């Protein structure tokens, strides 16, 4: 019996801007039904990688397969099956939340009745019921919730989230985590970036760590950490994600005596 196709398969991905390399020969696979954490220091190419695998950017070289099919920016059929919450959210400021979500839902081919019911339910669940404010008047956290709602409104099979929990209050984060767990339990896949390593450690099953410029340095199962286990890497054992991350990325901040 054939095993199900990988949800995401990236082979030899390269993204260059002129002479600057943002992503260098990145290859990784993500199984379906996985909560996948994609980590790296600032400027390491996480958002560029997400851009390349969601059709925002064209890779300089390499292949991307989503849900077992080759993917590029023109592939509308695959785009219909994925949801993306981009780094800059991609909102239209003069619109009201319900107008924006209805626009996204209609573009994803949802019928009018489903559009209306899902928009209403999402606004209610994410406590975005203040219809007197446009998106421009929303706080950063509220805008993030709207972007999250837009990413899930069409029940995608693969969800890409770029820093999903930043600026959202604890109750909102808890709700989103609950939804994401149920999402993966149903066999769907979540690919997320985050700098909150504790959250990634508790939420994700698998993690990939990249360094500048977009080079994969480690990929593995992190569920052992939740069971008081340890990850072996480079002859050392790590009982948490943070020391492993710092070890692999070599990120150190210089001390400032005057501060």
């Amino acid at each position, binding site marked *: 019996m054939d095993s199900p196709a990988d949800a995401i398969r990236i082979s030899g991905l390269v993204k260059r801007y002129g002479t600057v390399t943002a992503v260098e020969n990145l290859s990784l696979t993500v199984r379906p039904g996985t909560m996948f954490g994609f980590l790296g220091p600032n400027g390491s190419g996480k958002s560029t990688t997400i851009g390349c695998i969601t059709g925002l950017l064209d890779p300089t070289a390499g292949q991307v397969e989503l849900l077992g099919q080759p993917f590029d920016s023109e592939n509308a059929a695959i*785009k219909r099956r994925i949801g993306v919450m*981009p780094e800059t959210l991609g909102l*239209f400021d*003069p619109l009201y939340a319900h107008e924006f979500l209805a626009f996204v839902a209609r573009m994803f081919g949802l019928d009018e009745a489903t559009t209306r019911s899902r928009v209403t339910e999402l606004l209610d669940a994410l406590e975005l019921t203040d*219809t*007197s404010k446009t998106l421009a008047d929303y706080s950063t956290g509220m805008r993030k919730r709207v972007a999250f709602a837009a990413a899930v409104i069409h029940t995608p099979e693969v969800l890409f989230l770029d820093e999903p929990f930043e600026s959202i209050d604890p109750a909102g984060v808890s709700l989103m985590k609950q939804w994401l767990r149920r999402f993966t339990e149903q066999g769907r896949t979540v690919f997320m970036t985050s700098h909150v390593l504790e959250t990634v450690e508790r939420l994700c099953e698998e993690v990939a760590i990249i360094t500048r410029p977009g080079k994969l340095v480690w990929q593995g199962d992190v569920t052992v950490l939740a069971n008081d286990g340890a990850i072996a890497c480079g002859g050392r054992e790590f009982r948490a994600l943070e020391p492993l991350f710092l070890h692999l990325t070599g990120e150190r901040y210089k001390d400032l005596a005057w501060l």
Partner: protein
Amino acid sequence: MNLELIGQLVRLRYKLLWAKTRTRNGKIALFFSGYILLVMIIALLSAGGFGAGLTAVRSGKGTLVAAAVLTGVGLQALISTVVLGFGVGTIFAETELRRYPIKARERRVVRHVIGILDPFWFLFLALDLGLAFGLYLFGAGSFWLGLAAVVLFFIANYLAARLLTLVVDRLMAKKGGPIVLLASLMCLGFLPSLLQPVFQKKSPIVVALGRTVIRFFHYTPPYGAAVAMTHFDLAALSGIGVLLAWLLALTAVLVVIERRPPKIRSAQTTAITWNSPFERLGALFPERYAPLVSHWLRFYFRNNRFRTIYPLALPLAAFLLFFFGKQAGPHSTFPAALSAFAILGCIGTAQFAVNQFGYVSGGFRRFLLLPTDPAAAFRAGSFTFLMLSSALIPVAAVLWCLFVPGPFDARALAMLVSASVFSLFLFHALGLWVSLLAPRRGSYTTSFGNDLSFAANVVVIAGMMIMLFAPRLLAKAFPAAVSPVYWWTVPPASVLAAAFYFASLRYTTTLFRVRREQLLAIVEGKS
């Protein structure tokens, strides 16, 4: 006063200006604007200054000539800044300046020093200086008094432009503000033409009114500056006094208005509506474009600038017809109508059609994530502008039929409507190219200002000029060509323009795919 930090901020503004020239388009713009600036300064110095000085000396009416020139310069500056949006762009917003350790008064000084040092204002300064220098050379005035008058008049002119822009901005933010502004502009536009016959009668009331206006004119900045430029005695000081009084008054009013926070408009919608007129209009298009067209309609109808410019298109065309039709003689109505109809085909949406994604900011990213051909949003945007502009043509045709001077001529109507259709397709085709090749990040929230790229400005301004003057020039050279007799020449041109539009649509779709990453960087402000 923290002069050092203020100086640093002014320098930063120029560093930012220079940084723009790092891109290829920026370098071209710098070259052309630098070149044009130089040529204009030389032309303005000789024509404005020496010419006026010579006229003043020969006519013996130095003060009056100088006042007339300065009034013209001042009005030009007001129109260029308030209507065309040159030289009033906010480089540092008040909130941005708050992060620096400077007080409220210093922040105001920084904003206005940066504003007045905009290269655009140097053109007017050059003209003012040229005039003063010309008068001095021909012995009509003192060099130092002239210089002082120029500096004071220049600052007063800047403050007046700022004040007017601020008032218009505040008005636009109010409910019904665009309508009030529209009515005011209409009145200002039509008033001179309407009052002309009244003034020609020279009744005692009109004569008395004229004297009052002239008396008031003696206390205006241009006259004050002119007096200071053309006198050596105490009279010159009275001119300086008038200018100082205006400076104080304008500064005081500006400070008072700036201190009053703009009232935030209350929400327009509180109940969720699912089937708005935008959705209904969008539904007229094929299914894959319908939500996108609705989206563009909603996006632009919420924009203050669009809500001002679009409704102005029809009255402006009527004004052009009325004004130019009368100005150029009894047989000039039809060429003027041809100009007005051609301009109507594009003016309502021109500013947005040449910079389609310039105002969407981060929203542009969303278009690329939607499960559709990424260029669909681009095409849908163009269709929206085309629909909006074309909606004005039948209205104008009906109005022409109702108020046509002389007997109705179907050939004339066909020619006029075809001229509209011609400019509609031609301009929106050019808009497609310019939107992709020369986009610029604009501010969605500001009501006025020119945030188009150099190429977009060239297309809009040159396009309008050609449409305005080409029929009149053609009518002078070949009168028959611009008459209903040759009506059949324009419909084929419209068909060609339509063909050019659809060919452009096809080619720019491919270009969009190539350019979309650059577009993303530009509209998100990363390039």
